[in-house]
């Protein structure tokens, strides 16, 4: 597992619009050359917030990213995101 690499690519998409747009246009292409595990790559490409959270992705970065990639209004996202992460409690997110 490469928690650091997940945080790094999530942070890049939060901070750099060009990277976010490349991801939105072609998730697998954007992630292809990143040193990620297969499951991390899948979870990022599929915007599987619950799986990323369970892996220990940084919750602050993950939420910022969810806001930019979910494509739904904030109120709906608040509920869906909480549902996705709730089963996982509070995993350690130290790197």
């Amino acid at each position, binding site marked *: 597992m490469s928690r*650091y690499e997940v*945080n*790094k690519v999530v*942070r890049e998409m*939060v*901070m750099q*619009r060009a990277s976010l747009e490349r991801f939105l246009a072609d998730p697998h292409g954007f992630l292809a050359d990143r040193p990620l595990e297969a499951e991390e790559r899948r979870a990022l490409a599929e915007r599987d917030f619950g799986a990323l*959270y369970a892996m220990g992705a*940084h*919750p*602050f*970065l*993950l*939420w*910022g990213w*969810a*806001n930019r990639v979910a494509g739904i209004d904030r109120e709906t996202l*608040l509920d869906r*995101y*909480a549902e996705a*992460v*709730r089963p*996982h*409690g*509070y995993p*350690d*997110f*130290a*790197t």
Partner: protein
Amino acid sequence: MAKLVQLIGVQHNPLLYRRMLRAEEHPGMVEARAGYERMRQKLAAARPDVLLVIANDHLSQWFTDNMPAFLVGKAPRARGPFPHETEEFGLPTYTARVDVDVARAIIEGGFERGVDFAYSDEFVLDHAFTLPLTFLRPEMDLPIVPLFTNVMAPPVPPSSRFYQVGEAVRAIVDELPADLRVAVLASGHLSVEIGGPRPMREAPDPEFDARVVAHVREGNVAGLLRDSSWERMLRAGNFTAGLLNFVALVGVAGGQPATAADCVFLRTSSTPFFTWDLEEAEA
């Protein structure tokens, strides 16, 4: 000789900026806005020459490729926030001069007192700095010294360390050779949940927040340090560690009870106002 004239602690929820502009539409926000205005007046009345600001970055700048626990900014000019923060929260730009002499004195004084501050000649002020500064010093005319803390990326130093760093800052300011009036602003949080399972629409643990505010009011350092252990803060909300910036401030105060420690319990996030009027205390 320099002297500490005013200490202030407030929170930095970035959603406050837009809500404050339309305070009448949000329950409790008129009261919160009045609190920030009171803090602005306190800071102005203290007539400081320099403002030390203790706040944290949110992984925008200091990341785990190279994470400082405590860092002093010493570039001659400071500016923020980040473009993605402006975009998301509608935050205005804040610029300030940095008092480089005081910044350097804090770094060197830290080394002599067992605090190895990291330092930077090129940095951006995150919203944790610019939001309170925008409310408390809209003139942008007061030189600052930014002190960045890591409260976001564990491992984070224990609360006792934040308190010691505050004590070191107090000792360093006391010994500054220049005849300066120094104010300190700490920008932190009470209980808060971001990207975790608890609903982000509300403050996760107002009871915890009330107790912390009472510790600050009473100068109960032991209680404050106990309630700001990583495990205790995590139980109150997953990013409650912003409280550690207030622990550092209580260290700057030498553990004295605050002149006033109030809190507006907004539904979205408890909004504390901590002040130590140090000249009055002297008189």
